[in-house]
């Protein structure tokens, strides 16, 4: 990295701000129907604004929320492989939501009962993973965290399987929807919840991003710089569970987004969180909009579950990251 990189760095964020409008426009205009029909007929207008627009916006917000969650959890566990889906947070949230659906929905607590259950499920999963898997920063420690995540994921899918046996038909459809991930349920209620959670997370973490940078140096280093590491870990657990919990309620488990977009952001600007977080949010949003475009068009008129598309994209990135860590191993 030379001085040219530094010069370019200042232009990366403004340039990337151009991406979301372009990608959202592409998302709106992709799919069935001629553009002239979409733009000029009443039916076309309805498809465009009532069906596609909320869906594209939701795709962007889901990607942004998962990426923000990814950045936070990766920083706090000092592990670039810690994707919310991969380490079981999404799975835990899905279990929470499914348990609510099967046992508590008849109580009709309120519209927030289900996201609350998802939040609790995600937080519990994350706490278990961190408890089991946090050991320093070596490659062994990193694989330990991933292993802990895999075991939580296995348990989560078993619990979801159990729930689907107890579920009514409509609940079963909803549970299947969660485990594969889909944006077909897009509506403005979820969009506003996602937007609010994302904005709140950005405002809350804006002044704490340098603390996350310090954590990257190591736990002892961070503590000697005056940071209460345990407090930071708790804060991260709460915010990641909130962001991922709402995202899972809205769209089910969409894997690897929280891994890919922070990774691309770090490749472009280095690991400083003040630069990584906004870029990862933008990239994550665009990535899910693009993945949804692929999910809607590849096998049209049928639709692929979007989780499959993001996993197909994300697994190679994960493997390449693993190989790179392996090369670093002594």
């Amino acid at each position, binding site marked *: *990295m*030379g*001085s040219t*990189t*530094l010069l370019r760095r200042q232009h990366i964020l403004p340039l990337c701000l151009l991406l979301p409008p372009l990608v959202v426009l592409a998302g709106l205009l992709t799919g069935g129907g001629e553009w002239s029909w979409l733009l000029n007929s009443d039916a076309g207008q309805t498809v465009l604004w009532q069906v596609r627009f909320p869906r594209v916006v939701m795709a962007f917000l889901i990607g942004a929320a998962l990426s923000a969650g990814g950045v936070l959890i990766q920083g706090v566990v*000092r*592990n*670039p492989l810690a994707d919310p889906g991969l380490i079981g947070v999404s799975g835990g949230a899905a279990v929470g939501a499914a348990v609510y659906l099967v046992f508590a929905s008849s109580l009709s607590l309120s519209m927030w009962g289900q996201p609350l259950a998802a939040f609790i499920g995600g937080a519990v999963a994350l706490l278990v993973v961190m408890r089991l898997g946090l050991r*320093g*920063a*070596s490659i062994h420690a*990193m694989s330990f965290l991933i292993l802990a995540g895999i075991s939580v994921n296995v348990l989560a899918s078993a619990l979801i399987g159990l729930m689907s046996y107890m579920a009514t038909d409509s609940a079963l459809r909803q549970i299947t929807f969660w485990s594969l991930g889909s944006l077909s349920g897009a509506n403005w209620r979820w969009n506003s919840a996602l937007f609010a959670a994302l904005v709140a997370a950005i405002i809350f973490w804006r002044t704490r991003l*340098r*603390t996350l*940078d*310090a954590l*990257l*140096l*190591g736990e*002892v*280093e961070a*503590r*000697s*710089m*005056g*940071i*209460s590491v345990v407090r930071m870990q708790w804060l991260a657990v709460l915010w990641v569970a909130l962001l991922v919990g709402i995202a899972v309620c809205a769209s089910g488990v969409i894997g690897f987004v929280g891994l890919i977009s922070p990774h691309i952001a*770090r490749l472009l600007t*280095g*690991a*400083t969180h003040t630069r990584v977080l906004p870029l990862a949010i933008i990239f994550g949003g665009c990535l899910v909009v693009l993945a949804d475009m692929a999910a809607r068009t590849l096998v049209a008129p049928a639709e692929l579950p979007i989780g499959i598309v993001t996993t197909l994209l994300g697994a190679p990135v994960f493997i390449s990251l693993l190989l790179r*860590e392996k090369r670093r191993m002594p």
Partner: protein
Amino acid sequence: MSASLLTVEGLSLHRGGAALVNQVSFDVKAGELIMLVGPNGAGKSTLLSMLAGLQRGDAGSVAVLQRATHTWPRNTWAEHVTFVPQLSSMNFPLTVRDVVSLGGLAHSTSMVTLRQQVKAALQGWDIDYLAEHDVRRLSGGEQQRCQLARSWVQMQQAQSILWLLDEPLSALDLRHQHQCLQQIRAITAQGKSVLMVVHDLNMARQHADRVLMMCCGELVADGSAEQVLNAEQVSRVFQVETYLDHGWLGWR
């Protein structure tokens, strides 16, 4: 006699029935450069992390400027004491400038002051030509200078009084060892104190104002370099036959 910056009394830490640090007492005066020596596993690093408030002892006390520290939150510790642990690995692409700037995290100083301090640190530790490089790709000595520069920035704040360095010279070449000692002397000249772990006993004999020697968790000697690092005592503690020749320790 100048006032004590740090007073340690009867400090102990036991883990699993064994004493890692046992009944250690000493105090640190303003402007002292103290070198801590001892065999591997003697408890030097543990003692340092206790003096930085990172580990609580199960007996004894640490007082900073005659004030009890057992209720101090982390940021109060970081304002007064700067601790540099031995090098640990990192998984993220931070640049040297990013890392050095983090030394200002405990500060309340302005961005302008911090920028000046970071610039001075990069030059003072001879890493300005590496400023935009990824820390993970540096050599061991370069990484060590980067961590030292970061802690140097933390030491610049007004309340800082003690710099704890765990083997700061272990990866440095002769020129940078010299440079490191100059930086340390510039800090002690401000009336702040430095306590560092070293393994080079001749380095300690030449440069330390005072030497502490630990063995099996206990402080076995405390005094001037000549008093502590005599052939008989070094032979006994390190279990190597040593001799003194023209002020230099040798061994066969």
